[in-house]
């Protein structure tokens, strides 16, 4: 066992690095100025999620985690951007600046605070089962991913960045999941990815219809439906 400790140490350090890069990519989704940049940061985030799954699957070897990493790589780094690029017209992807409800520096500070809050939130959970190793890295970072995704959803007005915020939330949950639930039945994983692809497909159709019908994808500005008092 002792001879493996060195390798395990290296792997867990690499996993921590992947976690760090994952959170950096998530910050990118929060602050990117253009839709394309937002998408690129999301692809990076998914890539580091897959890397973390591969690393955790190395020691002790788990074919299951390897499969999860591979599924993620194929579905989120390859298929998903392809669907988005092909189903949505160029207008969605023109190189223009997208406005946010909160300015970018303020967003950065809020994102930082949320990350710290996520760490404090997850401490009692880790203590409850006296966890060591991967969960100590993956849970706080996964939770931070979830929080930052939620923040992206509320601070963005554009359709595609809102969708990417949603997907970033799921990525955050998965990032925690690969450490705490490494032996989920494979059918659940496959169904999850299937689910994800339907999600992209449905939201892309909806975005296209909104764009065609209303002429904008700034969905944050849609406000026809609300309660009004009697005149």
């Amino acid at each position: 066992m002792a001879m493996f400790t060195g390798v395990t140490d290296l792997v867990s350090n690499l996993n921590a690095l992947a976690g760090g890069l994952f959170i950096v990519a998530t910050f990118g989704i929060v602050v990117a100025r253009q839709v394309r940049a937002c998408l690129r940061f999301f692809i990076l985030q998914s890539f580091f999620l897959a890397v973390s799954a591969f690393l955790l699957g190395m020691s002790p070897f788990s074919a299951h985690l390897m499969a999860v990493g591979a599924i993620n790589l194929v579905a989120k780094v390859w298929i998903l951007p392809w669907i988005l690029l092909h189903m949505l017209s160029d207008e969605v992807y023109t190189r223009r600046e997208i406005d946010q409800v909160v300015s970018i520096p303020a967003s950065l500070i809020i994102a930082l605070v949320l990350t710290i809050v996520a760490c404090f939130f997850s401490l009692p959970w880790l203590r409850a089962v006296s966890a060591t190793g991967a969960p100590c890295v993956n849970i706080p970072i996964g939770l931070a991913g979830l929080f930052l995704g939620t923040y992206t959803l509320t601070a963005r007005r554009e359709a595609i960045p809102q969708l990417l915020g949603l997907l970033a939330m799921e990525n955050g949950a998965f990032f925690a999941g690969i450490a705490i639930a490494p032996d989920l039945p494979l059918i659940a994983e496959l169904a999850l990815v299937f689910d994800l692809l339907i999600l992209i497909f449905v939201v892309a159709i909806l975005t296209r219809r909104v764009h065609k019908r209303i002429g904008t994808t700034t969905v944050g500005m849609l406000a026809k439906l609300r309660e009004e008092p009697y005149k």
Partner: protein
Amino acid sequence: MILIVLMIIPLIAAILSALIDRPRFGAVITLTGAIGILVLSVCSIMGVISSPGHVLVSIPGWIALDAFGGLILFLVAFVNMTASLFSVGYMDFSKGGSRRYYLNFNLFTFSMLVVPLLQEPNIVWIAVELTTLFSVLLVGFENTHEALEAAWKYVVLTLMGAAIALLGFLILYWAARHARIESYTWSGLLLAAPQMSPTLLEAAFIFILVGFGAKVGLVPLHTWLPDAHSQAPSPVCALLSGVETTVVLYVILRLLPVVKLVPSLHADMWLVSFGLVSVGAAAFLLLQVRDYKRLFAFSTVEHMGIILTAAGIGGGLAHTGVMLQIMGHALTKSFCFYAAGSVLLLMGTRDIASVRGLIKRAPATGVALLLGGLAIAGAPPFVLFMSEFSILRAGLHRGEYFTVGLLVLFIAIAFFAIMNHVSRMVFGSDETGENSFSMPLPMSCKFTLAVAAVPVAVLGLYIPGVLYKLLILAASTMGG
């Protein structure tokens, strides 16, 4: 076996209605499928009641049905049947796209049917997410500015909730693994709960309650609900408001006996506070609605809050009240939306102020709307009166005077608000004097109103023996 056939029927109906493009074909195949589903679900409920452990198992650890699941299955099957009947007439007046409509309709039915049948909580999460994904395009079906806005809000808020709940389910799995659970199913969780770490269980429960609470329509994450439930085509509204919310609530209630085994979690306090806030907010919002479909949508928020509060109060009497309320809400709310949908077909407006004197202009629709309004507001002798009464009694019995007091106040405000709007629509004097409708009410819509009115009118006075047994067994699955 019967359960698997039950899951396959809507898929076959979906494929057929997507492939074959003939007028009315989708409607016929969907209605046939819906009747088949209803018959099979009644058969499987009989099986549940007569089997020794009151569980019907198809694939051990994956697909099974118990009494609580059976109740939900029956409600989904019944409302699905009436909704597909209403769709026949509704779609005749739609501007085409019926293939798209029936494809999504059947897939949506499939996703709701599998939730009570599945036993592995993680897979249940996937099924719940599918209910959102398959219904989004139905919400935006009318393709108007308002409908697309509603669909966007719906998809973003409920999927945000689903992602939060996903982390909850993963933490639940983590806690269960640490407790060396034997089989990760609802019943396995119940056995393993005493060994599970309370901290993790609490985190999982709160994440799931908040996440799925968004989809149930609990305040403050309810903002999408009145939009989506009012902009969708009326038969879809009946499904969304009547059973989709209930299906998601079922998942939260499934966890309740598990978390109640760990008293330090104060699960009951969480449920009561979430529930009361929802009932209260909905009651005051009901006072100022101007759109009658939104009226019934807000009433859904109110009823979900009542069910959650009752589940928090706990005890045998409250749990029976919960089951009665779930049943009464699903049957009555779908009926209300058929009545509202008929008014919309006749008048072509959703504005309460523009609809007056229905009782003279369209007597059948007027009576249906009045019946629905009285029943959903909880007037005696309807089933929701019985359930609310037993919930309040259970609360007094447990000494929860503050909770009961607030609940009575909010229910009274909601009653006044709903009846105020409905009575003006039905009896108010018609100043315009016009007597022309944009179109006559289709035959199938009239027929749906008649079919859906039967349980609404009858169940408050008489509950068939089998159904009563099912309700009692379902209440017992919630624990003491």
